[in-house]
């Protein structure tokens, strides 16, 4: 997990496995606040209080045949190392939200990574899930809403070759500020 995008991909994979149909991803990089703030909210099946406490433990996993789930503990560890915090809220039947904060100028903060590719692969390889990305810095506020995109496409699948090409170029053009 060498960058923030790897963590985003990992958390979203958990959301999709939990049956989420909508995932909201908020990422703000603020030099003024000296903060990198990541929030991911889904409407998946959620967890009860006991399970929600356990997922931050590296020796817990709900996957059969595997006893260790490392994704969430690694993210929590990185946040805490970087002078930030990690909060997980979940309600059974409603969904899960993770709220992570990092100090932006901390020397151990991993790079953000390739956000353009991350947004593309998540939205195109999970066509049945709706994603709302809100990416911002101190100046620009960028929104990428797959419900809006699917509305404009009006039945043409988001994973069609033409659309993949379009979205690749669109993200290349608009997501250069972070």
């Amino acid at each position, binding site marked *: *997990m*060498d960058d923030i*995008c*790897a963590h985003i*991909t*990992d958390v979203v*994979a958990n959301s*999709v*496995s939990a049956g989420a149909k909508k995932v909201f991803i908020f990422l703000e990089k603020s030099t003024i606040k000296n903060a990198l703030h990541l929030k991911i909210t889904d409407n998946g099946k959620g967890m009860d209080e006991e399970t929600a406490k356990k997922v931050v433990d590296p020796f817990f996993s709900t*996957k059969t*045949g*595997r006893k260790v*789930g*490392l*994704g969430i503990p*690694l993210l929590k560890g990185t946040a805490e190392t970087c002078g930030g915090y990690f909060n997980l809220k979940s309600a059974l039947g409603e969904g899960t939200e993770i709220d992570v904060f990092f100090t932006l100028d901390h020397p151990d903060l991993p790079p953000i990574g*390739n956000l353009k*590719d*991350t947004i*593309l*692969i998540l939205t*195109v*390889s*999970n*066509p049945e899930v709706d994603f709302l990305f809100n990416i911002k810095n101190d100046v620009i506020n960028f929104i990428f809403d797959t419900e*809006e*995109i699917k509305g*404009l*496409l*009006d*039945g*043409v*699948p988001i*994973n*069609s*070759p*033409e*659309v*993949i*090409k*379009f979205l*690749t*170029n*669109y993200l290349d*053009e*608009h997501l250069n500020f972070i």
Partner: protein
Amino acid sequence: MKLEDLKKIREQASKDMELRQKQARVKIVVGMGTSGIAAGARDVLKALLDEIAARNLTDVMVTQTGEKGLASHEPMIEVHEEGKDVVIYGNIDADKARKIIAEHIVNHNPVSEYVIEVK
């Protein structure tokens, strides 16, 4: 470049677009569990999407799945073809993924050196 331009794509797309998607000839599944991501599954997925877009492969769909329990072979991809055995490739990178598209998906010759299981 505006999102509104997507309307042009919609207009250009043939009317049987939805149909062709439902009849996707090939489904490629990429393992995107924690170990897959750590081993480079994102680059693999991106390479597959680039090839599909560049070659205009309208009957190929890429989706993702979680952990498969074979972490030492990650990144892994599965190729599901109508009426054929599922081919599982292991230790894939972006270049190998492009080769699998060219040889297996387009030319129907599985790349045996990367295959770890057929079922």
